[in-house]
């Protein structure tokens, strides 16, 4: 303690001695040239205090306290809430904590022009944000997802693939809703994909359509909506356990919820190997614009299933996806800089996002009921798994599982729900490709 005081006083003495000894006069004369000529007499005494005050003033003008706006404060509070939700309720903590930290980082007030902020060219954050703007991160995430996903339940029961398509109604309905609210076509397309409940796809599509760079046919530039769309997509994905159960209870009767499905047949390794190759070729031939997403997804799955590239698959599903998730989460969070983020558009996007989630869930549930009309006896499906058709892997499948357990404690739906879940990923990527080919 004593040492500290001595060091501190020595330092402060040095600082105050400097102007007295005339070491700082050259700087002083440059800034206070006019003052110096008129007040020659008491120049020395005042300059010490003046300079100290000036220094403190400039320092203060650079601090966050001087530059903060109410928007910054609100966004920082939102960031803290994200972190709190992630830690306390375990809502997708791997996403919410990086994003929450990113929101705080992006909303620390700063003086523009020092290459600090995420939107200033040359700043470190801007370089990292490049991966979002150019759509580099989402395909890498898809590679990891592919290397993690087991498609066997889908191969065993291919008709469940339709449920993943049904949930894409949410995408197109929201697209229409956004059009009616006055967004232009590309922006609406990017907003609609929130209903796909797929963070990487949403970022990929918005970076292509609503990136603030593209110029429309009538000469207007599209708005930069990557931040709001990504935040909406990820926050609703985290809220899947809150949004979906009430809808399930509303639309599916108690008896239907108790339907037991027969266990999926065992799938051979060969089938698992054929699946990614065939699905890759087929889906990308239909929707080539989704190539970056679907190509990487099935490539990752091939790495996993080939049985020869376990090392590569292991890297893709652990280290690589972790690194990209960290970068993506923080930069997407930081892109919510208050002056750009807090707008009427963002609020509309949040509203539309919630509606699109509801529509997607309902679409999946109702389509599952509809399919049941044609299926008989043992083949009947439990309509709850329709809700897993919104991607949000694997959260929505888990929600279906727990809801199923509530009505029948011995009915394990997780394996069955994974099938529409992964087909939802494929479906939303195809939908993104279609929207991109129409509007890109």
């Amino acid at each position: 303690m004593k040492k500290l005081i001595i060091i501190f006083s020595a330092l402060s003495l040095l600082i105050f001695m400097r102007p007295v000894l005339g070491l700082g006069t050259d700087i002083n004369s440059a800034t206070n040239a006019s003052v110096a000529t008129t007040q020659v007499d008491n120049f020395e005494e005042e300059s010490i205090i003046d300079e100290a005050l000036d220094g403190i003033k400039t320092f203060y003008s650079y601090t966050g306290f001087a530059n903060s706006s109410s928007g910054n404060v609100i966004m920082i509070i939102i960031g803290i809430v994200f972190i709190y939700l992630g830690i306390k309720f375990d809502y997708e903590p791997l996403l919410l904590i990086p994003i929450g930290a990113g929101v705080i980082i992006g909303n620390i007030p700063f003086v523009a022009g020092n290459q600090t902020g995420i939107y200033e060219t040359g700043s470190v954050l801007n370089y990292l944000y490049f991966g979002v703007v150019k759509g580099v991160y989402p395909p890498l995430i898809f590679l990891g997802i592919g290397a993690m996903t087991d498609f066997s339940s889908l191969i065993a029961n291919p008709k469940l693939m339709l449920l993943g398509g049904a949930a894409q109604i949410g995408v197109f309905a929201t697209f229409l809703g956004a059009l009616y609210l006055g967004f232009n076509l590309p922006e609406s397309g990017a907003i609609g994909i929130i209903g796909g409940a797929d963070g990487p796809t949403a970022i990929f599509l918005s970076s292509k359509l609503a990136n603030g760079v593209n110029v429309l046919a009538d000469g207007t530039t599209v708005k930069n909506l990557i931040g709001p769309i990504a935040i909406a997509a990820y926050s609703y994905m985290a809220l899947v356990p809150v949004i979906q159960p009430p809808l399930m209870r509303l639309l599916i009767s108690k008896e239907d919820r108790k339907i037991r499905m027969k266990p999926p047949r065992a799938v051979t390794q060969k089938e698992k190997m054929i699946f990614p190759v065939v699905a890759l070729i087929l889906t990308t031939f239909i929707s080539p614009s989704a190539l970056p997403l679907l190509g990487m997804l099935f490539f990752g799955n091939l790495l996993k299933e080939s049985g020869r590239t376990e090392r590569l698959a292991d890297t893709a599903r652990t280290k690589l996806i972790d690194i990209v998730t960290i970068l993506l989460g923080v930069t997407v969070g930081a892109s919510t800089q208050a002056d750009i983020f807090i707008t009427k558009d963002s609020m509309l996007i949040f509203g539309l996002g919630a509606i699109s989630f509801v529509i997607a869930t309902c679409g999946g549930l109702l389509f599952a009921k509809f399919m049941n009309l044609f299926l008989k006896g043992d083949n009947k499906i439990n309509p709850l798994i329709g809700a897993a058709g919104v991607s949000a892997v694997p959260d929505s499948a888990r929600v279906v599982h727990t809801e199923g357990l509530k009505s029948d404690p011995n009915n394990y739906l997780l394996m069955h729900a994974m099938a529409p879940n992964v087909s939802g990923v494929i479906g939303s990527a195809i939908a993104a490709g279609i929207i991109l080919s129409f509007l890109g």
Partner: protein
Amino acid sequence: MTHLLLYTDPISEGYVILFTGLLIVFTSLVLLALIFNYGLPIMLYVYKIITKGKDKKISEIKVKGDSGFTGELSAVIGASVHMYLSEQHDIESGILTIKEVKKAYSPWSSKIYGIQNRL
């Protein structure tokens, strides 16, 4: 395409995209489902004919032999292996051995060479 956008109403354009989009998503997934329902057995059959039993590198899981082996059974086995591995750590021997580590003298936290060196 871009010229069309100028003169057509975005809402009607939106409806076009809505219906064609949904149609394409559905047809592609239906195609995929059909191929895996009907095409896959054919593919496997063709593969079998081409290789004619030469395939010994990848051991096949015999489906017929394990008809009683359901996904639930494998989940139970998987869970038990996982639990065994994660709790394995608890069955370590409780004997702690603390060995003294001899090091060459390092003055990094020395009390002798302080700022206020009062000897």
